[in-house]
């Protein structure tokens, strides 16, 4: 068992260092694609971290992402970079506590649309504040952060989010969340403080999303609310995670990576019919992969297990 763990750790370390080499080996385009892949991987995994076990479908991704990006836009040139990131993380976490405590009694679609409304509300308030108080809408971010540095930060975030997910799954909190996901009433009668458990997880997930927004912001030079709080980010992340399968830690990445590549492939080769083809592929995926990519893999594994068992005998 320990040997297996060690092998796993070794492989992970090797994989990570290989990925860390990308900025030295690849040209700017591959690096940009790597950034996109990592961005969506981290966002979708962080989304799944909360929504997988609790089955709350959140559309608030862009709210946190945007808060991160805006923090950089406001403070980016005033404070050292690590401090900016720390402030962003704290703002995201504080917002998540507030949102978590007030919303988690909503269920189903009410929660979904609430989170969407929340993201829009924050965007509107930022707009109103900028227009009436600071009289600038659209801030310029000239932070000396290179593309490679963005890539490495995202890679570190990705490693962190997987490590976090792995640790949570093995903790009391993880177990509590699985029970909540199964049956919340039973969970409370088992002695689980469901509110604290859910809010804790929500905060962790939201903080990661905020950090992604902060890390990405220097890439665009110019931040305005419609860029930072782009609702499409929420939808894309949701779709990626659902497609991959949110009930496993490594599920969302199986949706994020192929979808990002698919978007890229289609928009590069079929700029005119991009949307139609994308829509058709979506439908095909929904019909052929009823339980997400994870479901497909698990089914494979289930059928292959007896074969493996037969082999040693």
């Amino acid at each position: 068992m320990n040997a297996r763990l060690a092998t796993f750790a070794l492989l992970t370390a090797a994989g990570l260092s290989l990925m860390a080499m990308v900025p030295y080996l690849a040209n700017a385009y591959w690096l940009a694609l790597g950034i996109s892949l990592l961005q969506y991987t981290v966002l979708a995994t962080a989304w799944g971290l909360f929504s997988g076990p609790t089955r709350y479908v959140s559309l608030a991704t862009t709210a946190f992402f945007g808060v991160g990006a805006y923090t950089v836009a406001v403070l980016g040139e005033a404070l050292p970079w690590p401090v900016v990131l720390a402030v962003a993380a704290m703002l995201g976490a504080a917002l998540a506590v507030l949102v978590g405590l007030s919303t988690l009694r909503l269920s189903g679609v009410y929660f979904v649309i609430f989170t969407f409304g929340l993201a829009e509300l924050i965007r509107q308030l930022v707009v109103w504040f900028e227009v009436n108080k600071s009289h600038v809408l659209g801030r310029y971010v000239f932070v000396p952060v290179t593309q490679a540095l963005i890539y490495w930060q995202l890679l570190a975030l990705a490693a962190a989010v997987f490590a976090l997910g792995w640790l949570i799954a093995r903790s009391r909190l993880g177990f509590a969340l699985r029970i909540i996901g199964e049956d919340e009433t039973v969970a409370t009668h088992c002695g689980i403080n469901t509110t604290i458990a859910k809010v804790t997880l929500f905060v962790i997930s939201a903080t990661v999303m905020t950090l992604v927004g902060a890390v990405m912001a220097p890439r665009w030079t110019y931040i305005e609310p419609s860029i930072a709080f782009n609702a499409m980010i929420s939808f894309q992340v949701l779709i990626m995670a659902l497609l991959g399968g949110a009930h496993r830690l490594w599920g969302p990445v199986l949706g994020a990576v192929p979808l990002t590549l698919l978007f890229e492939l289609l928009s590069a080769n079929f700029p005119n019919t991009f949307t139609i083809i994308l829509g058709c592929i979506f439908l095909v995926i929904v019909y052929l992969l009823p339980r997400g990519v994870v479901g497909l893999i698990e089914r494979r594994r289930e059928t292959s297990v007896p074969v493996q068992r037969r082999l040693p005998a």
Partner: protein
Amino acid sequence: MTNAILTGLMLGGMYALIAMGLTLQYGVARIMNLSYGEVLIAAAFGAQGLFTGWALSPFAGLAFVIPVAFLLNLAIYRVLLSPLVRRARTRDALEVDSILATFGLAFILQGIMLSMFGGAYYSYSYLASPVHLFGETIAANRLAALAVCILLGGSLYLALTQTRGGTAIRAVAVDPAAAQLVAIDVARTAAFTFALGGALVASAGVLISTFLTFSATSGVVFTMKALIVVVMGGVGNMLGCLVAGLLLGVSEALVASLIDPGLTLAVNFALFLVVLLVKPAGLFGRASR
């Protein structure tokens, strides 16, 4: 003040109009339809084409657009969605599947419209004349939309509460499993309701095309607005839909003229959030516990 309230009522009527179809589709047929706004825009293009091409008034166009939309939506449900409904074991599973499938459908519809009409804005003038009401001047086309909204919403409400078929639809909305037990053909009722919702949103598209500027890519705005109104009113509740729409409209107009037009949407979303915090299942929704 009178003016703001009048304006707000008309705006709210439009919001309710946009949302009525979705409350049926989502409340009864259990399809969280993300391609909803695209259907609305398609109908708007239809009305625009009929008006500029054949000088057909949008209200006459309704007679053409509504049946077409009904049949198209019926086909969409039968071909694309009913396999998912049959496959889904739980409501959650259907929700996830319908989000993914209708998201794809939205892309397809938008792509078709982009290839037909390009990405440019469209707008035309119909009934853009002033009407004097309570000493205030308002736009005739918006007033007409409000009237049709009240007419459609009211008759639908009566049909749902007073007729046998309506009772069946409400029964399916409340509990599909139990409805099945009392010999209601749930699959057919759901298909019919989905198509009815599609026809409603198409008529909304026709009406608002007389006063709003639209383009092939503006559907998502209406999808989200409709979702907000539906959820705020309580899923599947016609009356809730109307009240929520009017509340949003009136608050928007009042804020615009009394406080600051810059805060209208913020106040709208805040109102929506507060309603949900106080009543987690919407204004007229039944608590799920």
